[in-house]
């Protein structure tokens, strides 16, 4: 009997060696330990047939063999399960280099991106945004802004006419007059909007966007104009941007200035963008002309102010280094999709 048990153990050990998966492990378990016909189960039943004095020793041995088999089976099962798990994980491998599935993508037009960036800078300073009509009168677009009739100052603003009196505004400046007519100082506004001029070439389109600014209060100085616009260009073009103010002429401001910024592309050394001058002209500005104050009924002895205007399209051309302004209005998706900034 003893040898029979040891033989079963040996046989079990041999067969266990050959077990490669959970299925054959179950088969092995059944072969030896199945409740009814398991080889060891059957052998254990035979113990009761042995003489009483042999039973304790053989019984002990039989339990030991059984314990051994159960332990081995459990160990092997764990091992196989671990192997199985590892295989499943390995088989789940994917190619992580395939590009992701994007959610639906849209984007702002670059002009609007730039417009909102510029707006944000002034909104944070406490300016409000104002709006005015695209279709203007000769009075608001020119006369009230100190552009006399038959004056060469009108030459730079080739005007679309609707009838004797109505035209398409060539600048956002008429909104200055409209706002001042309605309100008393202090005034601090920006006016982004569409403007129209009869020009069409690589840097001019018959409509374009401008942003106007106006500050009126007691004691406003040319120094305030400088400080405000220097802050603005540093915010928009980067902290290191330098500003240069040159005397200029606009009928509705005096003194007037053009503002150049140091070229952010070459850092002032000279490049294609700045036409090798190191400077890029960015906007026109000036102290509000007393004649404009008189038109809106402000006392120029009490109030002073400054105003500026810049082409949003032009700023976008410069910021993104686009060479042809007409691209803005072609709306080619291959163009629009490049401006994925989120602001």
């Amino acid at each position: 009997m003893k040898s029979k048990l040891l033989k079963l153990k040996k046989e079990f050990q041999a067969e266990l060696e050959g077990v490669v998966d959970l299925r054959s492990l179950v088969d092995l378990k059944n072969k030896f330990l199945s409740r009814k016909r398991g080889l060891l189960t059957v052998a254990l039943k035979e113990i009761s047939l042995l003489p009483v004095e042999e039973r304790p020793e053989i019984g002990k041995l039989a339990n030991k063999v059984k314990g051994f088999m159960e332990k081995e089976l459990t160990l092997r099962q764990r091992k196989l399960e671990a192997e199985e798990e590892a295989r499943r994980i390995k088989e789940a491998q994917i190619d992580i280099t395939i590009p992701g599935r994007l959610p639906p993508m849209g984007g702002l037009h670059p002009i609007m991106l730039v417009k909102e960036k510029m707006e944000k800078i002034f909104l944070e300073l406490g300016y409000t945004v104002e709006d005015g009509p695209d279709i203007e009168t000769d009075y608001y677009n020119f006369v009230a802004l100190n552009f006399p009739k038959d004056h060469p100052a009108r030459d730079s603003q080739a005007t679309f006419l609707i009838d004797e009196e109505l035209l398409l505004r060539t600048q956002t400046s008429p909104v200055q007059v409209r706002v001042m007519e309605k309100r008393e100082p202090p005034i601090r506004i920006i006016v982004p909007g569409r403007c129209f001029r009869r020009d069409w070439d690589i840097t001019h389109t018959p409509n374009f966007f401008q942003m106007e600014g106006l500050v009126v209060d007691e004691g406003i100085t040319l120094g305030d104009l400088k400080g405000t616009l220097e802050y603005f260009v540093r915010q928009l073009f980067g902290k290191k941007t330098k500003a240069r103010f040159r005397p200029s002429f606009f009928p509705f401001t005096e003194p007037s200035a053009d503002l150049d910024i140091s070229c952010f592309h070459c850092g002032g050394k000279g490049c294609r963008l700045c036409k090798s001058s190191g400077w890029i002209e960015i906007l026109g500005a000036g102290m509000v002309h007393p004649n404009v104050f008189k038109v809106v009924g402000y006392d120029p002895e009490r109030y002073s102010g400054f105003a500026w205007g810049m082409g949003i399209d032009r700023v976008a051309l410069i910021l993104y280094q686009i060479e042809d302004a007409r691209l803005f209005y072609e709306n080619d998706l291959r163009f629009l999709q490049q401006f994925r900034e989120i602001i």
Partner: protein
Amino acid sequence: MKYSWNWLKTFIDIDIEPKGLADRLSMIGFGVESLIPSGSDYIFDVEITPNRGDCLSMLGLGREIAALLGKKMTLPLMTYNEIENKTDDLVQVKVEAPDLCPRYCGKVVKGVKIASSPDWLVEKLLAVGLRPINNVVDITNYVLAELGHPLHAFDLNSVMGLEIIIRRARAGERIRTIDGVERMLDSDMLIIADQHRPIAIAGVMGGVNSEITQKTTDIFIESAYFDPPSVRRTSKKLNLSSDASYRFERGTDPHALTKAIERTCHLIQKLCPCEVCDGVIDTNPQPLQPKKTWLRSSRVSSLLGVKVEKRRVEQLLTRLNFDIQRRDEDSWTVTIPSYRRDIEKEIDLIEEVARLYGYDQIPSTMPLWRGEDAGASDWVERERLIRRTMTAAGYYEVINYSFVDDNTDRLFRTEAEEAVRLQNPIAEQMGILRASLLPGMVANLAWNINRGIKNIKIFEIGKVYHLVKGIKRPEERKTLGITATGNFGERYWKDGKREFDFYDLKGVIEFLFHHFGWETLSFAPDNIDFYHPVRTALIRFGHRPIGHMGMLHPQICAQLEIPQNVYMAQLDLEPLLKAEASLVKFQPLPKFPAISRDISLLFDRGISFDVITRWINSLKEDIISEVKIYDLYHQGDNIPKDKVSISLNIQFRHPQRTLTLEEVARTQERLINLLKEKLNAEPR
């Protein structure tokens, strides 16, 4: 305008390099666009602003350079010999329109020999971009370039009746100008005439009939002051501008007329033997009193934001040839040089001080703010959010020109809409202001499709313009346009591909409104010509129609050569920019689970989902919490032609307890029976 370095140096001892001069000129208001070496000379191309007509000459810019460098100027030689014959014995001048010609001067030179100019003169003219013609004409052009005063030389023997009359043209009068073009004149135009005919258009161009030719021996030199707006109007009307008209428009110096004649005579005598007649005809020797104004030191400082010493103000203005006298402790009386037509008042003088003082010397400050806190108004923020919503939904923003072709725009206008027409469009196909955003946006789709991009979703926010009956000013309304074509989204592995359809468009509009908490959006069938007749809807916000949407009519699509279905919508943004956004009102979360049931039913083809939900609502079964459509078949497997299969998903829920399956089954049966009875539905 072009300036020659060597020519400028004949007036001023310039002790800096050309490049340095260019930089410093830019900083006092004369932007140097280019500086180009030319032989031993340098040519400056300088932008002269329209207020500084006085600088359109070597002398004019020279005065600025002298002020800049603190130098004195040497004026060119003006000496010549005269014979005894008097000019006014040879020719009479009569000004019939003194309002347009406040001063007219002239002088006769006899016995000139017309020839080509010597090399030095030709070189100087070419340097500043003038074309040499013959010695007399070249000298007048030389004086123009040098002193800035336009002159005209007439062939005296062509002046009929030896009388020069400055008058308005008569209707129907014509003149052939020296460029060879026959010009029709009108009674607003000032002309120079002899006793019989116009011989020049005043300040603009001379006539062929009196021009200097090889046969000319005696000349009459005109040096006049013409009213700037009048010259400008005439030049615009004739679409004819000249070096002379350019300067007259910008205002010349009425006091410099005789100087210009003297300089001319000096040069003519230098170039060829001739007889300069005695005296000058001058219709108004003292045309204007010198202009005076005042300037306050306190005002200079308060406007510039920097204290400028009184001595410095005096020094800077004196350099610019202003005569400045102390008036009291704070102020001066300032006499303005006659050529500075741009200076009238104190503010003009402050600008002069500022630009010579140097804008870069003025300290930068930030304005103090004593108003209320501002920031973005609601409509600005609303427009910004609408843009964000559209981009989040996968749409790209476009911006189109406000100008469109009337014929295309007409396709997208209703009978009632009338477009605003431009008097002077930039191109024929851009003749009107858009009455709709859609023609431009549909053109954007075509543009991209033609370039191989077939799946497109775009939006535009911009104004549309309409004539309104009885109101002079056309109406402008901020509008949102949406167009899409092609597949709904990008095609990815494991995903199906689906064509963009009506419901995608409707969904994005609903998305927009839900963002602002607006629940009163509704869609109703409509018949707008440019939409597919049975795939279009009128959009209402509350009870107010605010837009329309649908599929572009296949015929228009074909007419515009677009080979894909196009969906589009247009909404008036004005009410949306003003409408209050609704605050979110929190709903407590349900405490008991819902039971979900799917039902598929066959309905008649013309059924509407709206009618189905209305009948379901009429059951007043509180436990039906939601009815959704999850599938829709029109044709195909076992579905008769006149039927449509609709699959509904119904959620049953009771707020206070868990529902029993029996309750749900009972309600579901009531529902199906109702739909069978009322809508002829058949369960599948």
